[in-house]
């Protein structure tokens, strides 16, 4: 998560506010603790990364020992607080460590996301793993390598320059004498040396010398995935464990006034917990837990409040827009004058519905208390952050809470919060036994959080030559990601305004960038049409950003834009769009087929070019881009939360349609490897060009402009 004032604050009206509100025990002071790791050496780990450092995604002022451990058998363990949720952080961070330690990636054991054993590298979010944590891991491991080289030099009484390091072996070039990392690790000197702080000016391997980075190293635990050996958070089993469930209100903002729990309490083997608004049950099987919950749910009396529905949501968000006080527009030139003097002025409003991440694995956690210490295995994207959440909610000291995140079943920005962890912890405490809480799909759809809905108002002015002279863009509710126009326009006014969201909203793959880019790139297409210009030429005429030009031209070239445009019919359209966010650039060309009778849009083909600096893992980046394209099609065409008076009406996969095999178009991914800048992440920005490219293709075929996501519904309403 980076600066995005409207979405960084996840609204949490549904938490169990009346209990354990604040413990005041969040420890932010430096603390040091010692852990035993593997077969031997003591690791001294210093915690105490400043929040600014954490935001940058890498604990850097930490001891080398907190990042790297070399065992006497030569095993190398590298530690990171990052989580693997399917975007390739495990492979990428393994490669980073292998590169700097000069070993094969197979030699590295990456220990991830354990708040007791790994440094706080920030959440796995905001595309920060690549630009922040990879450099932090590289600095840590490069410092370790240099310390090992120094130890060898001291031992042989030679200059460090005389020594080569390769494959974990240090060689004296003159004498050909060798010593391995493992040999050195057997001496106490290494433990002493690794107490040093990671050096921030240690030289990192330049791109042109990369051996392991830049190659398609597969996910290191792939075999455990295909054999079913890997245990996801929802798969964790502890001895004597119970299965827990939480009683949910009938609607958002409903409060529990009373409940008669006696029938559940009378059931053998059932644990019942009622703390403030939290009512939970645990039993040896989830079937039994549900029986207990159903036995008493009908006795609950709830106080509800009326709330807006999805039918009126855009009017509601507009009416409640917070324009004026904190949110002020950024301006350049004079927008009023430019619009007044324009030859043509266009003014349109775009809408984006709330959508849900629907990670394949819904929220899950197992909690276990031992002598007052809480250990939680949870599917969340920040173990340290969720530890703080638990500390606040449960009123226990920070050092008494350990959060471990086994590689989990995806997140897409939707797993910042640790609700299941808190529920499991409350139940486990009362039960005196470990408790597993696994949300149902309906719970995930209802009680997690959503990508914000959006209302975006655009005004643009063209001069008599068809050049864009005025740009007025007001974005209500989705947040400020990618809100600035990359186009060269003399007079602009750009505003990101919050609103009063009736649904709990938060981060989602690329945040508000999808909404803002949908409006901008659709509106650019409208302006191009008004100017009588080709959409590609119109964009290029206003685009100075070389990186965006490169991907736009690459996508157009590989798609064969000029000749494909000539083949457009009433049933077949092509469209394109581009954009930039999180220091990466993307452009997409698509072909769609339109079934006018059924009002259906079928995406036939997508050619997308993407550039995020030097490519760290081509196969993984390809997966990320392919995944973004298809996921983006879901929000573009069909996905939308339907709700009424605080109730979600389509909290399942039959009412909320995500992309399936049948929806997959022909996909041509073109990765641009730009090696003269630092690498940026690739898991988010490739999603932002797809929706506007589809809308623009529908316009090319039909002359109908779809200004509302999801567009499938919008087309059916218009036809």
């Amino acid at each position: 998560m980076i600066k995005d004032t409207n979405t960084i604050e996840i609204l949490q009206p549904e938490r169990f506010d009346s209990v354990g509100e604040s413990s005041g025990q969040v420890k932010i002071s430096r603390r040091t603790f010692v852990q035993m790791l593997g077969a031997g050496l003591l690791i001294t780990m210093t915690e105490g990364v400043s929040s600014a450092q954490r935001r940058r995604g890498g604990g850097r002022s930490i001891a080398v020992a907190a990042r790297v451990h070399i065992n006497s058998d030569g095993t190398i363990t590298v530690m990171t607080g990052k989580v693997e949720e399917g975007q390739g952080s495990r492979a990428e961070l393994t490669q980073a460590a292998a590169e700097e330690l000069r070993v094969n990636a197979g030699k590295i054991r990456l220990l991830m996301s354990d708040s007791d054993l790994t440094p706080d590298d920030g959440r796995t979010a905001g595309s920060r793993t690549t630009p922040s944590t990879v450099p932090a891991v590289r600095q840590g491991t490069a410092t370790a390598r240099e310390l090992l080289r120094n130890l060898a030099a001291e031992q042989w009484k030679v200059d460090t320059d005389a020594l080569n390091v390769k494959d974990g072996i240090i060689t004296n070039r003159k004498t050909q004498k060798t010593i391995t990392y493992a040999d050195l690790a057997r001496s106490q000197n290494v433990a002493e040396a690794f107490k040093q702080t990671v050096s921030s000016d240690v030289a990192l391997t330049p791109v042109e010398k990369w051996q392991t980075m830049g190659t398609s190293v597969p996910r290191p635990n792939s075999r455990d995935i295909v054999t079913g050996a890997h245990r996801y958070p929802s798969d964790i089993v502890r001895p004597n464990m119970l299965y827990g469930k939480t009683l949910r209100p009938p609607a958002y903002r409903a409060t529990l006034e009373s409940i008669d729990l006696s029938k559940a309490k009378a059931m053998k083997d059932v644990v019942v917990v009622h703390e403030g608004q939290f009512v939970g049950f645990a039993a040896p099987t989830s079937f039994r837990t549900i029986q207990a919950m159903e036995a008493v749910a009908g006795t609950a009396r709830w106080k509800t409040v009326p709330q807006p529905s999805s039918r009126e949501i855009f009017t509601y968000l507009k009416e409640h827009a917070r324009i004026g006080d904190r949110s002020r527009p950024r301006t350049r030139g004079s927008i009023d004058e430019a619009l007044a003097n324009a030859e043509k002025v266009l003014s349109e409003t775009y809408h984006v519905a709330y959508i849900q991440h629907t990670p394949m694995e819904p929220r899950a956690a197992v909690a276990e208390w031992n002598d007052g210490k809480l250990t939680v295995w949870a599917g969340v994207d920040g173990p340290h952050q969720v530890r703080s959440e638990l500390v606040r909610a449960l009123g226990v000291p920070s050092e008494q809470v350990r959060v471990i995140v086994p590689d989990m079943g995806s997140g897409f920005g939707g797993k910042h919060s640790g609700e299941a962890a808190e529920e499991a912890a409350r139940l486990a405490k009362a039960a005196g036994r470990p408790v597993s809480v696994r949300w149902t799909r309906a719970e995930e759809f209802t009680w997690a959080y959503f990508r914000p809905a959006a209302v975006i108002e655009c005004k643009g002015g063209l001069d008599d030559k068809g050049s864009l002279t005025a740009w007025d863009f007001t974005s209500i509710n989705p947040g400020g990601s990618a809100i600035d126009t990359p186009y060269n326009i003399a007079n602009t006014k750009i505003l990101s305004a919050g609103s009063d969201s009736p649904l709990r909203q938060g981060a989602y793959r690329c945040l508000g960038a999808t909404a803002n880019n949908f409006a901008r790139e659709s509106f650019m297409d409208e302006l191009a049409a008004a100017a009588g210009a080709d959409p590609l030429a119109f964009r290029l005429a206003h685009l100075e950003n070389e990186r965006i030009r490169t991907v736009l031209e690459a996508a157009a070239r590989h798609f064969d834009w000029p000749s494909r445009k000539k083949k457009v019919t009433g049933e077949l359209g092509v469209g394109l769009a581009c954009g930039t966010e999180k220091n990466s650039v993307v452009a997409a060309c698509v072909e769609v087929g339109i079934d006018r009778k059924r009002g259906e849009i079928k995406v036939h083909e997508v050619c997308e070019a993407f550039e995020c600096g030097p490519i760290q893992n081509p196969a993984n980046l390809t997966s990320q881009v392919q995944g973004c394209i298809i996921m983006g099609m879901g929000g573009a065409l069909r996905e939308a939360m339907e709700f009424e008076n605080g109730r979600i009406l389509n909290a399942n996969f039959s009412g909320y349609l995500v992309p399936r095999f049948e929806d997959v178009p022909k996909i041509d991914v073109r990765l641009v490897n730009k090696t003269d800048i630092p690498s940026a992440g690739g898991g988010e920005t490739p999603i932002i060009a797809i929706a506007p490219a589809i809308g623009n293709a529908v316009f090319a075929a039909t002359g109908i402009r779809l200004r509302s996501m999801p567009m499938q519904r919008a087309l059916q309403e218009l036809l």
Partner: protein
Amino acid sequence: MAATITLIVNGTEKTVVSDPERSLLDVLREDLHITGPKYGCGEGRCGACTVLMNGKRTLSCTTPVSLANRKKITTIEGLAEGNSLHRIQQAFLDEGAIQCGYCTPGMILTAAALLNENPNPTDEQIVEWMDGNICRCNGYTKIMKAIRRAAVQIAEVKLP
């Protein structure tokens, strides 16, 4: 009322005492701690819970455990033979057709059932057969490639 039910899971006979209405998925996961089959939706719409029952693909989340009595259940844990992976497992590795991997067991078993019935499917047949399995990382392109690769291997085995 609890019933005694016998499941032959990955070649081993297991007896459980369970309410017969519980789902096969819950019994495998909670009673037998076989966690390869995943919960994804609970309504048979995502395929994450897929197992093979007497060789046929079965959605274990909507199958009452009583229907599995005396049946042979294959989960992802039982697909490899010793250390030798099933060719579909290998194809998923070779194509890197894994992102978060949570849908992978269901994808692999569904594909295994397909190739059992139709060793040389067309792309259309693969799409139709696999359409009940959701991958939210949207790794469909590589999963398709993996299934094609495994299918080609079967064809090669059959045509020396």
